[in-house]
């Protein structure tokens, strides 16, 4: 990456449908040969015979932003060649089959962005203050918990 090109860290909480193309475009760089992307979607699922119709997300928004900033610093320390990082996360109601999170990381060579994207989704689940409630066709719901 040329010195003149700033590294971009972009985080967005959004109540709208997430555009993969927009997230990918946000990390594009002529000095990078690799972009790794992860998309988390709401799975069709059943719990005790109740069908999941969607997820309801909420966040502690300013802290989600500050934890994302810390996470980017951590990623850049581990993989110094990483160029740009972009994460879009849904809030509110997300129907089964839709993306709840889209993230992309660019780097000159592929191994760095591939390792960094795995770390990014693992750490997002562990550290960024976002919660989801699974909502069932019976109208009730239950708050989920990410594994440690």
């Amino acid at each position, binding site marked *: 990456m040329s010195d003149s090109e700033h590294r971009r860290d972009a985080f967005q909480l959004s109540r709208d449908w997430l555009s993969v193309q927009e997230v990918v475009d946000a990390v594009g760089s002529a000095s990078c040969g690799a972009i790794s992307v992860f998309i988390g979607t709401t799975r069709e699922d059943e719990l005790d015979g109740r069908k999941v119709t969607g997820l309801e997300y909420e966040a502690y928004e300013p802290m989600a932003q500050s934890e994302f900033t810390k996470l980017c610093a951590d990623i850049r320390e581990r993989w110094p060649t990483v160029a740009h990082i972009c994460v879009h996360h849904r809030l509110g109601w997300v129907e089964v089959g839709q993306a709840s999170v889209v993230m992309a990381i660019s780097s000159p060579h592929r191994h760095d962005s591939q390792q960094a994207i795995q770390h990014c989704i693992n750490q997002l*689940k562990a550290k960024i203050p976002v919660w989801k409630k699974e909502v069932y066709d019976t109208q009730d719901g239950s708050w989920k918990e990410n594994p440690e």
Partner: protein
Amino acid sequence: MVPSFGEVSILYFAKSAELTGVKAEEIPAPTPLSSQQLWGLLLQRHPRLSVLQGQVVLAVRQQYIAIDDQPVTLGDGDEVAVVPPLSGG
């Protein structure tokens, strides 16, 4: 040190907001106190929060802190969040 009282903003998220029925409230809190004592104050106000016992952490001025006997210094207007297990992604 002479304890002083300040008003702090408590934010409740996810299951903790369902249990308390409020998303935010101002409460008077002595300072310094331990995070365990702070959690105790919240339990007094909202006994139903006890189902989260052992599962929550707090965030004081957007920094996670475990619930233990470490002292917490709170200034007037500081923001404290009750953080149930995360489930983003």
